[in-house]
């Protein structure tokens, strides 16, 4: 399993989350000594429940990369990849990972990351497959590429029992059966459907709690900042998905957040503006970014990132049916992919809904310089929400982990101006 040992969980969920993440990273460094097989997976479209049922240690290269940003070590890793020949325009997560490979896998967390026995890629992000090919060449280990169909209709989810739903689920299930055979060959173990069902029960419980935890932030004041505390929570959601520790963590977090709501305790002592964040965060200047908003009394009550970036887990209420574990995993993975892949076509509706649900005063878009894909539809989205709902919005741009794209004076200027807009509106509303 992911984490072989955990000490008793303490009272503060964020500190616990950070400790769990560090513990998980450390456990990856000793996986080989324990004789544990290692799989590389992405956060979206990964079938990790199957891998967990075989006892694989899971390395998330995206998390390794973002951690180079959090630990202020990204420039060295990015430079190594660029010196090697990667263009500065290439996804900074890919470059940080290449930098890690060129650094003998010595990660800034102090952990020497193990090479994979198996890597899973999918079509959920347009660099995943090429990225997995880099692993294949570097480590000489196979990449298993999942093809999970998307959907391009106004209604993102295919109807239950529809021909599309049945065909797509069968298509993905077939691939999962192939993956299972490959896992059996690598580990020398027989597939245990009961073990998979057990993992799915845990995922369901984590998901049920997560949906409620997200909903708690509708309270005024918001008990946590979706783009600071929320990111730690999501890290645990990824790394401990389907585990007993993951369920325990979510229970602790639920209790803590419920308690804060009952006491009326907010993340920001003087909450003035409730905001929604759209896009991926800037991990290299995360604290600074949050400080720029919180200094004006602005808190991120919700973020679309928290609803789509945790693999099959999202807030759309997709639960597994453990009585048919492989088929259900295929069906949920398909639906999650449909949601992710067609997100560009309906995100304005989901964001408008979040604005309503969280009683938001404004929305902040964060474009990523080294990934234009995630910024797709932001301009249309912004126009829709501004013209249709008169909602104040702000577009800022930097990067996932590349500090060269963080221009503090420019970003501060835009954030200050955004709050001046919000203040003006408040004043006008008071005047009637």
């Amino acid at each position, binding site marked *: 399993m992911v984490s072989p040992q955990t000490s008793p969980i303490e009272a503060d969920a964020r500190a616990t989350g950070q400790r769990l993440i560090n513990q998980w990273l450390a456990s990856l460094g000793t996986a080989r000594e324990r004789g544990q097989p290692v799989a590389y997976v992405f956060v979206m479209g990964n079938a990790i429940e199957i891998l967990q049922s075989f006892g694989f240690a899971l390395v998330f290269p995206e998390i390794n990369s973002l951690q180079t940003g959090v630990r202020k070590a990204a420039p060295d890793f990015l430079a190594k990849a660029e010196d090697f020949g990667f263009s500065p325009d290439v996804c900074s997560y890919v470059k940080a990972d290449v930098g890690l490979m060129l650094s003998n896998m010595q990660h800034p967390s102090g952990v020497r990351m193990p090479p994979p026995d198996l890597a899973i890629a999918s079509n959920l992000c347009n660099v995943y497959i090429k990225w997995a090919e880099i692993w294949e060449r570097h480590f000489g280990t196979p990449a298993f590429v999942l093809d999970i169909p998307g959907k391009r209709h106004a209604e993102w989810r295919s109807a239950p029992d529809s021909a599309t739903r049945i065909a797509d689920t069968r298509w993905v299930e077939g691939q999962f059966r192939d993956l299972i055979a490959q896992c059996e060959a690598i580990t020398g173990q027989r597939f245990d459907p009961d073990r998979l069902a057990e993992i799915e029960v845990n995922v369901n419980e984590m998901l049920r709690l997560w949906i409620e935890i997200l909903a708690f932030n509708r309270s005024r004041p918001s008990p946590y900042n979706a783009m600071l505390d929320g990111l730690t929570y999501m890290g645990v959601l990824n790394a401990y998905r389907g585990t007993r520790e993951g369920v325990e963590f979510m229970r602790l977090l639920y209790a803590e957040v419920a308690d804060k709501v009952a006491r009326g305790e907010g993340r920001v002592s003087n909450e003035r503006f409730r905001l929604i964040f759209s896009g991926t965060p800037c991990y290299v200047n995360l604290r600074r970014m949050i400080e720029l908003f919180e200094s004006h009394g602005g808190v991120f009550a919700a973020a679309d990132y928290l609803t789509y970036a945790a693999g099959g887990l999202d807030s759309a209420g997709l639960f597994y049916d453990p009585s048919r574990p492989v088929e259900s995993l295929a069906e949920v993975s398909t639906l999650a992919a449909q949601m992710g892949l067609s997100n560009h076509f309906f995100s304005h509706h989901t964001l408008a809904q979040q604005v309503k649900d969280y009683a938001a005063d404004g929305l902040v878009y964060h*474009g990523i310089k080294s990934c234009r894909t995630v910024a797709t539809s932001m301009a249309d989205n912004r*126009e829709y929400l*501004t013209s249709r709902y008169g909602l*104040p*919005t702000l577009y800022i741009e930097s990067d996932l982990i590349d500090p060269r794209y963080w221009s503090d*004076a*420019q970003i501060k200027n835009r954030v200050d101006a955004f709050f*001046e*807009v919000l*203040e003006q509106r408040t004043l006008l509303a008071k005047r009637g």
Partner: protein
Amino acid sequence: MEYVAGIDSGSTQAKGVILDEHGSLVGQAILNMERNMSTAAEEVFHLALADAQRRPEEIAFTVATGYGRYRVTFGDLQVTEISCHARGALAEFPATHTVLDIGGQDTKAIRIGDAGEVTDFAMNDKCAAGTGRFLGAASFALELPLSELGSLAMQATAPVKITTTCTVFAESEIIGHLAKGHRPEDVLMGMHHAIATRCASLVRRVGLASEVTFTGGVSRNVAMVTLLQEVLGTPLNVSARAQFMGALGAGLYALDQVRAGRRSAHSQEQEVVL
């Protein structure tokens, strides 16, 4: 009579205005930002005071704006140039619903609501393409004063199609076209067109609504005004004091503070009330 000051500490120039208690502009000054930001702001403040024939102690409140707003050590309150340009433009042209400001490093499009409030804004990101710096590079490459670029461009007969608006590569782009035998006015007109197209797209991002007021130093450039009117398909308001719009807006915000009973107190933290 009480007076207020508005200081716009920009990337290329510092601008200062002095307003009387009725909001009338009684003094103004402009300085190239060739020195320390704090001292340039102070210098421009004293020049504006001298222009208004007032003494520093007669200034009841000072608002600073622009990238250097936090470096204006005598500023009582900082307001971004987005709010200030909107405010200044509205003071000059009350029916303004869109402001386009082309400054030295930033180009911004600002949308204004019916109550005079800023409803949206868009700015160039990470790149000074389509800003005043691009013209600065042209002036350097052609060895012509900045103030003559616009009128020379207007003499173009066969404008060159310029494909890049990269400020860093502007010089080599110009030299390349000149080497091919194009006339400087035709190259210049091509450059102006490239900037105008880029700025127009920024305006469309916030939604074009008339009247449109063009502010900032580049609005003194006749070719840019002509081209923007053409590309946007609407006439543009251009004030004779277009460069001072940010400082004027800052001065008007200072006046709000005085009217609300606040007075300059550098040691005291002021609550931002716009």
